[in-house]
């Protein structure tokens, strides 16, 4: 599903941030990406989102070469990934419904269809009945679930989460993790960047560990 092939990333200012990264995430697999801060986690995620291009090597998503993608293809590649952020990245002046509907609106789906899908996914993340609320009126855990609903609403083959539980207490974090497991069960690949060791150990899934830009365990 997601394949890194000897990927390196060098910045002119800070030198080589990632060195010879190779791993392969299969369909419906859950993996944690971990490592101390500065180890290159966020750079790796940026490479997947095609926010940055790798200096060497190749990245494949669902058979498509991300590292060779043209600028005009990037939006369509991003539609195949659901991103979840630590700071949620929600539109504060839009309702929960609109936030979750955004990827569907962008994909040009009819509104009846949008209404149906958004309601289904909000139901799944336990936010039904809150669709008319604004993000500001929700708790941190609820806002993160809006972010998750937005990432999952278009049923992408892969979901990538960057420190999804960073701002949440352990109980809420476990709940969020349970959601990810439920995505995996319907065949979605999930990659979670996190430094929450205790949570990772509790979950007992594959762990990709980065240290100084290199993969030390996969």
């Amino acid at each position: 599903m997601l394949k890194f092939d000897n990927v390196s990333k060098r910045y002119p200012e800070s030198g080589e941030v990632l060195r010879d990264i190779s791993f392969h995430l299969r369909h419906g697999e859950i993996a944690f990406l971990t490592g101390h801060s500065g180890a290159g986690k966020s750079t790796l995620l940026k490479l997947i989102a095609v926010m940055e291009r790798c200096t060497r090597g190749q990245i494949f998503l669902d058979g498509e070469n991300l590292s060779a993608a043209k600028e005009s293809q990037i939006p369509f590649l991003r539609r195949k990934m659901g991103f979840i952020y630590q700071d949620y990245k929600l539109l504060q002046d839009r309702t929960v419904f609109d936030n979750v509907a955004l990827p569907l609106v962008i994909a040009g789906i009819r509104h009846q269809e949008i209404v149906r899908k958004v309601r289904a996914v909000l139901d799944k993340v336990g936010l039904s009945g809150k669709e008319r609320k604004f993000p500001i009126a929700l708790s941190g855990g609820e806002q993160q679930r809006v972010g998750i609903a937005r990432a999952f609403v278009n049923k992408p083959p892969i979901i990538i989460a960057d420190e999804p539980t960073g701002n949440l207490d352990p109980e809420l974090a476990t709940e969020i993790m349970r959601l990810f497991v439920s995505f995996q069960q319907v065949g979605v690949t999930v990659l979670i960047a996190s430094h929450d060791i205790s949570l990772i150990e509790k979950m007992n899934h594959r762990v990709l560990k980065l240290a100084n830009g290199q993969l030390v365990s996969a």
Partner: protein
Amino acid sequence: MVNWFRLNTMKGFKKRKQTKEVRYVKTPSQVTRQTRRVGGDLLDKLCAHCDGQGQALFSSLGRLVDSPFNSIMTIMVLAITISLASGFYLLLNNLHQLTANIETSAQISLFLKDEITDAHANKLASTIRKNPAIQQVTLISKDQALAEFKTYSGFGSAITALKTNPLPVVIQVLPKNTLEDKKELENLRQEFQRLVEVDLAQMDMQWVERLQSIVAVAERGACLLNTLLGFAVLFIAGNTIRQELHNRHEEVIIAKLVGATNGFIQKPFLYAGLWMGMFAGLLAWFIVSVMMLLLRQPVEALSGLYGGGFHLLFFSVADFFKLIGISSALGGLGSWAVLSYQLQYTRPE
């Protein structure tokens, strides 16, 4: 972001009310609806596309209303700029009418010497009338000239104070149409000039030619100014959209992260530019029309002085649509130029 899917949401809420009963009572009907959908996939996509266009179009209008102060300021500046341009256009149209009306006139005016009396002038006029090259002769006596001058010049009381009439007798001579050649006309003028009674024989044609070249200069000048003003509209619209884009930077980034193309993102901004241009065009039309109404009376009075052949021209219906069309196009174009440049460099970090 209001713009990207405001309508969608509204439709969504409307729909929700309807489906609420349906949802719990007859789920099977939803299933059949879905299976039927498979066949209408292309139609669905088309509808979704139209939905998107309509949404962006009308919700961008909604956004203009959301920040009325900003929009009004920009639209006012645009409207004043467009008023100037369309004002020049109208002025030219009117000047054209002026030269068009008198183009064919080859009239020669004979200003007689001061000591020539009306009776003497009458005799002279009838001699001229016998000339086979002459089509028509009109005599304007001293008193007639004075009366006309009193009525139209506004110096009525000053003139009454004059002891003697300072105006000369004028004989207006219209040569036959066969006399098209300029040289022949000039010969005729010189012939009149040689008459002892004539102080000055002047070809009105000369004035027409001068007027025409003045109009040509004005035309060129107005064209250049209008080009400049057009660019001003482009830049004003572009700058406003740039600010709007800046204000909505975060939304643009989020939209890009969830896979929005530049085309999708720019649509509502582009329509906002079009709307601004259109409203500015309408306002400019209104401003110029009011100004024309205010000018109408003095212009008609002035026209009366010259025989009343001139009437102030307003915008025609075609002009109106041209004005609105060009303003909207300029607003849209200015926005498009800014958007296609800026969106390329707006990237998630």
